[in-house]
């Protein structure tokens, strides 16, 4: 178990280094990061001064080492717009994004798991058809569009929920629901197909043939085996929610990292964009690590496999 944990941790550290490297070189992809960050009508002197200030005039290798050593102590440079360190600005926004994602994830689990279970246990039933339709909707409805439609119906026409902001308790309902739709569809489809698969396994047939009652078969044999892949899907989807709420936070003016990202792009504040990208990746990597561990704790096959 310890060996498994250490090897997963090492992989995460390597991935983290990879993320830093990618984020560093992406900013220099067009050749000149100065032209990217300054307005078109900046004078050559201003551009030169800016280049000097940001240290872009040094050799790339020096810049890269400098970037890495600063990143190691959590320094990702200053935001151009706020003129303060970028990382605290990002951290400030974390709690709002996490709150949105947690509530969205709960909604997705509450919708996806029951529908997936009933669908998998009774394929072809009306509830299964409903579930499959929901699964299809979740895959094909663009969330930014759904957000606009829900605002139109539930905020503008019916006045049930506020159309933007995070100052009321019920503000979270619409954005969290939009965020949960695609995830609930993933969870539903996965639960359904795993149940279908496990139902046909030998151990279920054996259990049935030795006369176990249905409830015991469902809870001890089927549900336990469904839980394992479910945890992994939930972990991956939670990461997706943390990094993928850009549209939703922008549309609902939800004060999280996604909203900050679209603002930073608008300001051409690339140091801030870079810090956001790195920080979100770190959170997602940590989440993947946690998922892997939960997975190993639940499934002895993985623990002893390697």
């Amino acid at each position, binding site marked *: 178990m310890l060996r498994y944990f250490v090897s997963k941790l090492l992989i995460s550290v*390597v*991935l983290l280094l*990879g*993320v830093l490297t*990618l*984020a560093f070189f*992406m*900013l220099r*992809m*067009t050749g000149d990061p100065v032209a*990217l960050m300054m307005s078109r009508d900046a004078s050559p002197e201003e551009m030169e001064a800016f280049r000097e200030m940001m240290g872009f005039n040094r050799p790339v290798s020096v810049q890269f080492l400098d970037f890495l050593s600063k990143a190691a102590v959590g320094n990702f440079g200053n935001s151009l717009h706020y003129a303060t360190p970028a990382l605290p600005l990002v951290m400030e926004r974390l709690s709002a994004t996490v709150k949105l994602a947690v509530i969205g994830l709960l909604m997705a689990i509450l919708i996806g798991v029951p529908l997936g279970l009933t669908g998998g246990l009774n*394929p*072809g039933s009306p509830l299964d058809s409903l579930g499959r339709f929901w699964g*299809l909707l979740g*895959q*094909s*409805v*663009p969330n*930014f*569009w*759904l957000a*606009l*439609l829900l*605002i*139109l119906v539930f905020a*503008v026409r019916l006045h049930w929920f506020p159309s933007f902001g995070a100052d009321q308790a019920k503000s979270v309902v619409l954005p969290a629901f939009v965020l949960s739709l695609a995830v609930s569809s993933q969870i539903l489809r996965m639960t359904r*197909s795993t149940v*279908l*698969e496990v139902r*046909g396994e030998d151990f279920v047939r054996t259990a049935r043939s030795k006369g176990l009652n249905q409830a015991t078969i469902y809870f001890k044999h089927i549900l336990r085996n469904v839980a394992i892949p479910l945890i992994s899907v939930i972990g991956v989807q939670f*990461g*997706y929610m*943390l*990094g*993928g709420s*850009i*549209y939703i936070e*922008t*549309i609902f003016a939800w004060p999280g990292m996604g909203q900050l*990202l*679209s603002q930073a*792009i608008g300001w051409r504040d*690339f140091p801030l*964009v*870079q810090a*956001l*990208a790195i920080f*979100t*990746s770190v959170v*997602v*990597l940590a989440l*993947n690590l946690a998922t892997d561990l939960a997975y190993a704790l639940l499934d002895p096959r993985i623990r002893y496999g390697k």
Partner: protein
Amino acid sequence: MVSKTFSPKADSRLEIKTTFKDRLAFLARLLWRDKGGTIGLIMFFIVVFAAVFASVITARDPLDQDLINSKMPPAWEEGGAWEQPFGTDSLGRDMFSRILSGARVSLTVGFFGVLIAATLGLVIGAIAGYFGGRVDSIIMGPINLILAMPYLLFVVFIAAILGRSLLNVILIFGITDSPIFARVARGEVLRIRESAYVESAISAGARSGRIIFDHIIPNLIGPLITLATFEMSAMIFYEAGLGFLGLSVPPDVPSWGNMLAEGRKYLVNDHWLTTFPGLAIMFTSMGMNLAGDWLRDVLDPRLRRSRK
């Protein structure tokens, strides 16, 4: 065939030989049995038809402005007219012809994006899977790195740096999506290499080339086509999303994402500027997902049973 003697080789070929027509009939039967797949394919062909024949279906130019008739509602609402069934936008441009042109942009991005991603992914994944060992670790390291990162965030990051153009969007999706194809191709190659039929081909003395072309590549096509369908649908989604943030094709190009970004400003009073582009994305994506589910079931017989 050199001779007609009953060598074991000729014999086995006789048994598995099915004509192209048989296969087509078999596919058609499977398709008919899966109503979702039938509907999905029809939906997809409608979108392709709309994209190809946009200029034949409507004579109106999607870029022609007519400020006097701006923000005209769709035909079935008060103040609408059947000459412009989906109404007009804030500059009086015909929404119906803009939606049709949008299909063109979306399908172009989806098709070429997937083509690049699948080609890159197939080559990279097949090399990693076939040679294995150190080659595999060197190739799959960066691939797993990219797959572990928050995808949307990095696509937005790159798009913001590169700037708005159709070519950039296609390249961004083509390159950032290739790791998924690489991973699937690698997994399939590994699975096929271990399979009994490849083992027996090797023990019968088949050379590498024969194994790659006769056994591995034909077996890779199924999973890759299925993946391509889903990825194309995802790319159409992401393109619209980038457009919505103002990071996709230039603002004067009528893409569904650009139209949504524009429509958002008039959401409260002129809902059709938002409704139609969104419906178009949903229609396309739903068709491709249904068709993709069907393809996956058909191309992978192991799954055919589990669905009823």
